[in-house]
């Protein structure tokens, strides 16, 4: 059986391909890219973009331990619905993914239930406690693509230094959640006029900036790859920019909510606008856009963090941090970055495909003859309104409810199989 995706605008950011044509898929691979290609089945992609399957290197699928928030199966379905064919799961589950057996468990659950590829990351320290490093060589063999204690920073610089040295030896990048928790003090949103106005304890930007700076310096000291997660503040972007200019081995990501929303969203969306790091202010939103435009920010990730409706349906201060992102990410990129001309469509897709994959050396994010048939087809002009009730994710916690966006996924194909079709 072969499938032709016909008459789409085929874009492969890595090779610079951007033209109208057909893509022929056979046996899970891309057989041909050209014109007037024949196949058994045909998917009309006229007016649509056909690009490599999107890659998200920062998601929380909550399994094992929190299956009422999300499972690897439902998370995979949400990813497919959002146009993603590869995701990197975070290890802050219960138990935390801190040994090879648990990495194997995640991979097995993905094989059994996820329509797209799940690349697990594993803990950098045992039980994410920041004390004793994990058996990274075996973890790598089991298939983990990075180590991280995401959800928290490693408090001790001494421990982090050794983690970075050891992870580099094992060929594993370190994903850094940058946060000085001693500044946290019950904080629930960005510290600023809005937190004063709402009477909520604040999370100052310095919490993230201090640790981005420290973690970059430890990357320099150890000459190890540190990937800075979820940069949210102007200061954070500036520190990453400087570190890169100095040639340090760092990369960084941001998430859609950091270029689309400010802390004012907490007033209207309450706990569904609560995440860590928090939504910042207008100047930070601008700085994140600048960082995306000038190449400081290497990729777009969602930090997809589902919680149950009940968990979020409480006082803002008591609600857990995190929002879902997989099913709105592409449209927020198209509507808020591409349409206003901040970055081109091709570059935006690079940030969501090849560039994201390259950070963790994933065999993903490219569309070329002979490569895996991981392909996303989306209509860049289709308008839709965000309604969490129809999400494939178990999570409904989004601050984008009711927002009208442009860009809708029509089909997601993973290894030649249709993982999602609208």
């Amino acid at each position, binding site marked *: 059986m072969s499938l032709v995706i016909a008459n789409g605008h085929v874009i492969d950011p890595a090779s610079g391909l951007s033209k109208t044509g057909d893509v022929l898929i056979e046996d899970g691979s891309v057989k041909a890219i050209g014109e007037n290609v024949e196949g058994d089945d045909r998917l009309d992609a006229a007016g649509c973009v056909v690009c490599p399957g999107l890659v998200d290197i920062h998601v929380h699928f909550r399994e094992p331990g929190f299956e009422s928030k999300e499972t690897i199966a439902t998370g995979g379905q949400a990813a497919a619905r959002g146009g993603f064919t590869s995701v990197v799961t975070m290890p802050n589950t219960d138990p935390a993914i801190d040994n090879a057996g648990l990495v194997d468990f995640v991979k097995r659950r993905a094989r059994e239930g996820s329509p797209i590829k799940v690349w697990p990351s594993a803990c950098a320290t045992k039980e994410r406690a920041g004390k004793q490093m994990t058996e990274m060589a075996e973890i790598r063999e089991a298939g983990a693509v990075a180590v991280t204690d995401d959800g928290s920073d490693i408090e001790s610089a001494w421990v982090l230094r050794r983690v970075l040295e050891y992870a580099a030896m094992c060929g594993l990048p370190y994903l850094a959640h940058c946060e000085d928790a001693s500044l946290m003090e019950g904080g629930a949103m960005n*510290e*600023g*006029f*809005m*937190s*004063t*106005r*709402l*009477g*909520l*304890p*604040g999370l100052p930007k310095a919490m993230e900036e201090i640790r981005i700076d420290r973690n970059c310096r430890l990357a320099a000291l150890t000459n190890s790859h540190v990937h800075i997660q979820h940069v949210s503040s102007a200061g954070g972007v500036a520190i990453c920019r400087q570190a890169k200019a100095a040639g340090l081995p760092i990369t960084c990501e941001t998430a859609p909510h950091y270029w689309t929303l400010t802390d004012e969203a907490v007033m209207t969306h*309450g706990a569904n606008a609560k995440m860590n790091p928090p939504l910042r202010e207008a100047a930070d939103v601008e700085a994140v856009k600048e960082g995306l435009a000038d190449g400081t920010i290497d990729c777009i990730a969602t930090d997809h963090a589902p919680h149950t409706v*009940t968990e979020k*349906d*409480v*006082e*803002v*201060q*008591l609600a857990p941090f995190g929002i879902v992102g997989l099913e709105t990410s592409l449209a927020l990129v198209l509507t808020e970055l591409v349409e206003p001309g901040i970055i081109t469509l091709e570059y935006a897709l690079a940030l969501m495909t090849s560039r994201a994959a390259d950070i963790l050396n994933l065999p993903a994010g490219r569309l070329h003859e002979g490569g895996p048939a991981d392909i996303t087809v989306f209509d860049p002009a289709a308008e839709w309104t965000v309604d969490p009730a129809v999400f494939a994710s178990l999570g409904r916690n989004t601050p984008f409810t009711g927002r009208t966006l442009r860009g809708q996924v029509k089909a997601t194909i993973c290894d030649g199989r249709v993982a999602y079709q609208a």
Partner: protein
Amino acid sequence: MSEVDTAGWTRKDLIGLEDLSRREIELILDTAPQFVEISKRESGIKKVPLLQGRLVVNWFFEPSTRTRASFELAAKRLSADTLAMSASTSSSTKGETLHDTLANIEAMHSDIVVIRHGHAGAARMLAERHSSQIINAGDGYHEHPTQGLLDAYTIREHVRKARRDPEAGLDGVRVAIIGDISYSRVARSNIWGLTKLGARVVVCGPSTLMPPGIEHMGCEATTDLREALSQADVVYVLRIQLERQQKALLPTLREYIRLFRVDRESLKAAPPHAIVMHPGPINRDIELASDVADGSRSVVLEQVSNGVAVRMAIMHLLVNSGKGWQKTED
């Protein structure tokens, strides 16, 4: 008493003074005097049937003596039935959500629910979902609107007396709010309320207890007590939480007293006509010296008396207004 006019009130709830217009605040203040009279009746019968048959639930998650008693008295003087629920007797410790608990209260047909809660936004969260009329009796550091209203009322009474003008408002009146601004819902409600009424507010406290961007609420900010007091018609002293020094927010209470206590000495910086207010309970001789608290410039107990009348006015407006808000519900 004559028919009390409720025209012009259209809100279901009272969540914060940030939400209210000047006109709405003035409506509450103008409604209050009739209820002041009821509490002072020569007959001794301090009751009117305006809320007869209604159920007012006082739902307090934090310890409170004054506010709770004031709401209860206000409801009783309006002839409402009252039900008191405190955190220790409510289900909050059993893991029930706030929404569920309120739904259960409503199943017993409550009319007004007065809520005091430790977390900002609790009152609004409930008001947006439930049909009960919610009065916020303090939510975290966010707002304490009835305190702000009774304070505005008390200030207005004094301005009117001082100016011998029964119509005088707060335009141009200078109010200095002294103390822990960061963690104070009273400060926030007073800033919103008083500035909307035309008063000029300056907040003053240690830099560690001054929240970011406070001046965007329409007030000035200083850490110099004498500067704050220098033109004040009203000196509003906030309670300082004694545990602040444990959190490295203050070196010692001794130093706080040195810099920020309102006492006979520091009060010399203020004009002689300035009145002194405090929301209570007072830490005697810490934020406010006893001789000032008990002195002729203190209106602290008037605040408490006015509190009952202002809360009666609010409940009356909420329950007996045109209910325009019901049209927007489905």
